[in-house]
Each structure stands twice: as structure tokens, then as C-alpha cells.
């Protein structure tokens, strides 16, 4: 690996040019009490070219959507359009302070107002908060809102029902909102087990958190029945919209009976993931939940846009200011670039690509759910496991061919899971190359398992020892160490 930034540089080097003090200044000591002063500031000293080379070289060690096929299931690694980045860099957007008077940020507020309208229309909700910074943050917002909703109704519902195939954030968010988790199983067809749901959906359950399409890449075919069971028991239906990409212009959460749903702007709406964020996790709600939305909302009076704090039933604030504005902007530009027709085509090609992989690889890898899938296809590495090759080995071998591995070992109810989401922005040629390599790896698993156990062979590093990392914790460089 390359040296750390802290092992580079030399005393007296400088990577920034700052103006001289142009006002009378009596020195730090004259303005700050001595006991508050810092004695040592142990930061490195580097030149600008050194810093640029260091981080440029680090960037080269990364796989990325621009450079590689990146079929991480449930993450929707579609292409991030360059026009979005260019427009998000306009000074009229980046150089705005959140506390400027509303009259001086009308363009920004108009953009947020329009985005809320568009997203609400796409998923069939009445209103939406753009405040959540990520999907899990949207989940927590929704959980706190439905808690307030039931409190107002005088109902004490302490449980939230979550399918076993759900994203791990669902139960984690529900617990942070003060709920207990009741898990329901997935049936043999990949849907929620209806009979199991009926048993647990009672007056103690506040809601069912359902991902649709599910993390198995399947549409919840009994959705109307599910919705009816939940609502008849007085509960609410929460939608995890992480997989919305499959449904754009095809079906809407609101029409399926969902009462609230969060989206991921950094998945479906092409905002980049940034190596782990920042993202955007807006939450849309039906009418009865509007009073509980976080403040502020962007509203309009005549031709003027304003931040509305006048929501007496609001759960309050979920973060400072208004959300990840630049992420919203990229999502807005994306919606305008595609229009309704483009969004529908995106869903169609995403689903077509996933099913093409399913059809071409099903003879080589175990397919637990043998039916048409939506945005992603789940295989199991169980056949290869019988030969002593684990899904982890298959994943690492893909790196040798310049392709990012799919999501692995998730969902938890599929053993040795390989969750592949190609997205619509990959061409048939790329998919064909991936298919060829996956077939080759299936062959290697039979003939030369050792080759897979030792993969990757030509990455910047060989297989890393995660157990050692957890055992001998080293999460920050130390001058002595």
C-alpha cells in the first residue's frame, strides 16, 4: 500500500496560500485566555502537489461505476450523469448559506418544492420531507412519525413487524424509535408469509416495514392482501423504497396501500454514492401523516416559496437545516433529463438486464426463486459450496476481471447469497462479459478451487485478513506506531 499522508511531507511545507492579516491584530494571546490555548497541533505539513499526487494515487486503487461494472445488489449502482455534477457546482447553488433570507434563496426553495412534487407523484404520496440524509435516516423519521401518530390516537402499539429478508437498517431504525421487532418469515415463493403475518398483525403492532420489490428482487404479489391485513388490524404499512428503480412509471407505493415510504436519491435517482455517502433519503407520506412531518417544509404562497415551520404536530427536526441540498439537486436534474418516458425505460432496462443475467446463469449457479425477477437476481453459491468454494471466493475472483462483486451473504434467508443488480445503464456487451466470467468461475470452482480461495490475484492487495483487523484494532495512525 502507499504510505499514509502522515508519513509524508516535511517541516515547513505548505499546501495552501492564505492572505495576510489585514486588520490590527494583537495576537492570539491577547484575545483568548491562556488556559484555552492549544499547545501542540500535530498535523502533517505537505505541498499542494504532494497532496494531489497522494490522493490521486489512492483514487486509482478504487473500483467505481465510471471505471467498472458494479452490480452491488440493493445499491443500484447506475451511472451518475456528468451534467448533474456540473450543475451541482454552480455558485448560485453551492455558495448559499442556509440562514439567508428566503427572498435571497428563491431558486433553491423552488427546486426543493418541485422535487418534492415530482417525487411524491412518482411514488403516489401526498407530501414528502427532503430532510433525511440517507435511507436509514428516512426510516427513523418514518418510525418516529408513526409513533407520534399512534400516541395522538391514544393507542399503545409497541411492535413493528419486519420480514426476515429485510435490510438490516429496518430493525435497527425501529429499535431507535423505541419499538420491539417481530420477525416474519418469507414463504417458498419469496413473498411474505401471509399466515404468519396474520398471526402477528394485531393491536400491539404499529406497522409492517416492507421492502417492495423485496431484497429477493421479487414484487410482493400479495401486496393488496398484505395491505388489507395490516390496515384491518389498525396498523400502518411502511415502504422501504430502496428498490424503487424497478417500479419507476410502472407502479406506485401509494396505489399499493403504503402509508409512508422512503426513497434513496443516491440509488434510484442517480446521485453518486461518494464511496459511502452523502446520500438522500426523502420520506413520503399519505394525508393522515402529514401533520407529523419534520420541520421545515417548503411551501408556496402565490409566486413566493417559503420554509414552513408552522406544523404543531411535527416530530421536530431530524437534522440541522433542510437536508442534503446538492444531492436533491442532482436527483432533480436526473428527473428532468429522463422525464416520465425515460424513467419508465430505466425501469424496463434495469429489469431486462437482471432477467437476462438470470436466464444466462441459471444453469451454472443455484437459483432459489425460479421466476421472473425485477431489478436484481439472487443466486446461491450452494453448488459451489459443495466443492469447497464459498461465495466469498467467487466474489473475490470477480475482482481479478475488473468487475466489482455483487452483494454477498444477503439477504440472510438465502444461503451463500449472490445478489446481482446490473441496473439499466449497463449494456448487453458488459452483461455478456460478466456472464462469460461467471461461467468461467463456475468452471474454476470445479477444477481449481485453490485458485478461487486465493483470489484476488491482481488487485492492489491480496485477500485481507478481516479477523486480524477486528482482533488487533488499529483505526488511527499514531506517530510512534
Amino acid at each position, binding site marked *: 500500500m502507499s504510505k499514509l499522508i502522515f508519513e509524508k511531507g516535511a517541516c515547513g511545507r505548505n499546501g495552501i496560500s492564505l492572505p495576510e492579516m489585514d*486588520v490590527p491584530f494583537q495576537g492570539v494571546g491577547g484575545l483568548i485566555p491562556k488556559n484555552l490555548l492549544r499547545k501542540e497541533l500535530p498535523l502533517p505539513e505537505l505541498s499542494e502537489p504532494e497532496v494531489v499526487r497522494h490522493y490521486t494515487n489512492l483514487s486509482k486503487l478504487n473500483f467505481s461505476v465510471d471505471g467498472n461494472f458494479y452490480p452491488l445488489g440493493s445499491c443500484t449502482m447506475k451511472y451518475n450523469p456528468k451534467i448533474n455534477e456540473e450543475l451541482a457546482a454552480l455558485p448560485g447553488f453551492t455558495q448559499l448559506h442556509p440562514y439567508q433570507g428566503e427572498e435571497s434563496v428563491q431558486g433553491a426553495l423552488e427546486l426543493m418544492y418541485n422535487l418534492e412534487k415530482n417525487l411524491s*407523484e412518482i411514488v403516489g404520496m401526498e407530501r414528502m420531507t427532503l430532510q433525511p440524509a440517507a435511507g436509514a435516516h428516512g426510516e427513523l423519521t418514518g418510525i418516529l412519525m408513526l409513533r407520534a401518530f399512534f400516541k395522538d390516537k391514544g393507542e399503545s402499539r409497541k411492535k413493528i413487524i419486519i420480514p426476515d429478508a429485510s435490510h438490516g437498517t429496518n430493525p435497527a431504525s425501529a429499535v431507535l424509535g423505541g419499538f420491539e421487532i417481530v420477525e416474519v418469515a418469507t414463504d417458498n415463493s419469496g413473498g411474505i408469509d401471509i399466515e404468519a403475518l396474520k398471526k402477528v398483525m394485531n393491536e400491539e403492532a404499529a406497522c409492517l416495514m416492507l421492502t417492495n420489490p423485496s431484497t429477493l428482487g421479487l414484487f410482493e404479489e400479495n401486496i393488496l392482501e398484505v395491505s388489507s391485513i395490516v390496515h384491518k388490524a389498525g396498523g400502518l404499512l411502511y415502504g422501504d423504497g430502496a428498490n424503487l428503480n424497478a417500479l419507476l412509471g410502472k407502479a406506485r407505493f401509494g396505489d399499493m396501500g403504503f402509508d409512508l415510504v422512503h426513497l434513496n436519491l443516491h440509488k434510484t435517482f442517480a446521485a453518486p454514492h461518494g464511496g459511502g455517502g452523502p446520500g438522500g433519503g426523502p420520506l413520503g407520506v399519505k394525508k393522515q401523516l402529514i401533520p407529523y412531518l419534520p420541520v421545515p417544509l417548503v411551501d408556496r404562497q402565490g409566486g413566493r416559496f417559503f420554509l414552513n415551520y408552522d406544523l404543531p404536530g411535527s416530530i421536530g427536526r431530524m437534522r440541522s437545516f433542510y437536508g442534503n441540498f446538492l444531492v436533491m439537486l442532482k436527483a432533480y436534474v436526473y428527473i428532468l433529463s429522463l422525464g416520465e418516458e425515460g424513467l419508465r425505460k430505466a425501469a424496463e432496462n434495469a429489469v431486462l438486464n437482471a432477467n437476462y443475467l438470470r436466464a444466462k446463469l441459471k444453469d451454472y449457479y443455484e437459483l432459489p426463486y425460479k421466476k421472473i425477477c425485477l431489478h436484481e437476481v439472487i443466486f446461491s453459491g450452494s453448488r459451489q459450496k459443495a466443492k469447497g468454494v464459498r461465495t466469498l471466493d467467487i466474489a473475490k475472483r470477480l475482482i481479478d476481471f475488473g468487475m466489482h462483486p455483487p452483494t454477498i451473504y444477503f439477504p440472510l434467508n438465502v444461503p451463500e447469497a449472490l445478489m446481482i443488480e446490473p441496473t439499466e445503464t449497463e449494456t448487453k456487451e458488459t452483461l455478456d462479459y460478466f456472464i462469460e466470467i461467471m461461467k468461467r468461475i463456475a468452471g474454476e470452482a470445479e477444477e481449481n478451487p485453490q485458485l478461487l480461495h486465493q483470489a484476488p490475484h491482481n488487485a492492489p492487495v491480496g485477500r485481507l485478513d478481516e479477523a486480524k483487523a477486528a482482533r488487533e484494532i488499529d*483505526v488511527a495512525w499514531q506517530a510512534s506506531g
Partner: protein
Amino acid sequence: MDYSGNTPLQQKKMLAEIGLRSLDELFQSIPEGVKLKSSLNLPKQLSEIELVRELKDLADKNKSTSDYSLFLGGGYYDHFVPSALKYLIGRPEFYTAYTPYQAEASQGILQAIYEYQTFITLLTGMEVSNASLYDGATALAEAAFMAVRINKRNTILAAQTLHPEYLAVLKTYLAGLDLTLRVIPHNEGKVDLKELKNYLNKDVSAVILPQPNFFGIFEEGEKTASLARKNGSLCIASVDPISLGIISPPGKWGADIVVGEGQALGSGLNFGGPGLGFIACRMEFMRKIPGRLAGKTRDERGKTGYVLTLQTREQHIRREKATSNICSNHALSALAAAIYLSLLGKNGLRKTAELCLGKAHYLSEKIAEIPGYELKFQKPFFKEFVISSPHPVSKINRKLLENKIIGGLDLERFYPVFKNCMLLAVTEKRTKEEIDKLVKVLKSL
């Protein structure tokens, strides 16, 4: 433009391989009753040329710091963002990658996060930093949860001098777990330590102290931390990272957990987001810290590499027993912070802090010389201060805006008792000329 590359002919071939005849058949699992039959009410699709025009029109409706001198702060500041930083975080190898689940294909971002974590520990004087959180407010709420996990007590004491929006977020978050939030009143712009003593009891999990506080004033960090410790409570500090160029780090004065808004470290203003939440703690609390951590390890050949570690704390393994629900964080903003601190280094950060300190004091002195104006609190401050004026803040700000200046924050918005009080912030970007102009406009009122 939909960015997909499959031609109609290719689609046909692919459908044939799948055994279907039309794209519609791909969606046969969606029940007829919920299939979208009508068209959506969305704006019409735009070409790139039209898009640029549309968005520039929106941008032009805003008044940005390209044309206006900004003296607003209140948790978000107009600090300098070096060109080299913008160029580096614009590299698609960084911004178009996902969370580094596959370490061997993500060494760039993993090493950068490890470096970011190190920078935060060096800056705060703590031993462990996570890989980032959303913003300063949510980082504070996470720190409160963390304290409760550590000592199993149920009350959080927060200074009234905290950012009002941070207090609001704390209130929202703590309500979820039925935890109690009590606010310690201030006395003349600073936490009243006598009051703090009255609030301390065996239910208090942590005391939250901003340093400097929302009014820009320095609090009694050491005394507060010591009172908390004697009560068996933790001390959480919420800090301005730029101030740490010259101010003693919380690790030195006894804080147990440190959080803050890292927007100042190279993220820019962005109308309030994205910024960066940072959180750091002492080593003994490492396993309680929320979110991701990058750790150092070796590969099979003994070569150094980096991975996400201690993932057993996280929700994809622990589900409902996870330390938090954080999945996506603000990795790219964390990268920006690492690059920012690399470029500024020891001398650049110190000088930036000094420039803020010097210029803010120059402005405060000049305003105090104007008849009718005075510094609201006569206490040491960093780059922000409160003035009381003979005019309503809205009137002042209107006049300033006419003169291409964006004035300070009207404090009455958050504290109804502070009538005609304005919170002004001055960063290294403001010049003497801009400051003098602001003073001139005030004199003219």
C-alpha cells in the same frame, strides 16, 4: 436521455433468451390492480442544453457569496475551499464508488477514511473516530445515544448555549427511546456552572457542552467535564473544528466524546448540506461508537491494507442489536476533510483560525464604537459574536443586502428575549474592506 444502452434489437434478443416476447411481460408479477395505468404528472423531459438553461435560471434567482459578502454563521460558515480539494473529490474513482464492502477493490477510499479518522483524532485529542456521520446535529444525537449505551442512565443535560437546531434534533431523537432531555440555562451567554450542579444527579448520562458555543463564546470546558466526571456522567463536547487550530482540544480538557459539524473542512456552504458529522471518543468506548470504522490489517502476503472493521456492531449483522442504524454516511465529505487538513497542515489551520479570530474581533470593536450598538456579552469569543443594536435586525439586513452584504442571524428567531440582537460571523475570507463597508452601512442607518 435515459442513459441506457440496450438497442431495440438487443432488447429483442435478450427477451428471447429469457423466453419472453415483450418488455411488459417482465412486469407480470405486479398485480393488475396496482399497475400504473395513467401517465404521471411530471415536467417534460429536457435536453442537456435546455437543462443547463433551466438550472441556471434557478441559480440566478439566488443571491450567492460570489456576489455578496457573507457575515452569517450559526453553525455553517463561509470558509475557504482550495481548488486542489475540489479537483480531488471530483475524481470519479472516489465519488462513483459505493461503501467499501469489498476491501480489495476499494483500497483508495478505505485508506482515505483511515486517514480521515486519524485527522479527527489528532484534531480533537481523542483516540478513536468513526468514518463520519450526516451532520453536527445528528452526530450529537448519536453521541447522546452512545453515552446512554455506556452508562445506562436515562437523562441528557444539554447547555442552552448549544445550537438551537441541535437541541431540536436531540429532542426528536431522544423521544424515540423515552430518554429525558434537560436544558441547562445560560448566564450572560455562557453555561451557568452553579445551575449545572443543580441539574446533576445519578440519572444524568452525559452533559453536552458546545465549545465555542452558539454565541461564539468559550465555555468552561475543564470545569464542566470535571463536574460531569464526579457525578459519574460523561462529557460530550460539540466543537468547531477550525477553532481547534488554536484552542485546546477536548481530549486535553476532559471530554469523553467529541462531535461537530465538519462542513468548515472543505465542504462549502451548499445551502446547508451536504456537510459532515464527525464523532470521536476515548479508546475505552470504541465498541460503542456508532457507524463505520476503517481499520488497518494485512493480506495473505503480509502487505498492509484497510478494511471496514468491528462490523459486528453494525446493523447488517446485528440488525436490531446494532449500535446505530447508520448505513450510508458522508464518506465523500470525510474525504474532503482529510484533503483539507492535508493541504492546510499545521500552519494553515492555525493561520486560518487566527485570521477568523482577528477579523471577528476587529469587526466587533468597530461596531461597538457606533453609538447605540454594543457587544451583547463581554466574554472571550472565537469567530462569532452577538451585537445588540438600536434597530430591528430585519431592517439592518435589508439595508445590508442593498449594499451587497448578507448580514448576521436575527437571534430573536431562536431566543425571543434577544430583541434587536444579531449573531455575526467572520471567516478568513472576509477582507478589511468588506468589514469596513458593513460598519459604514450600520453607521448610515
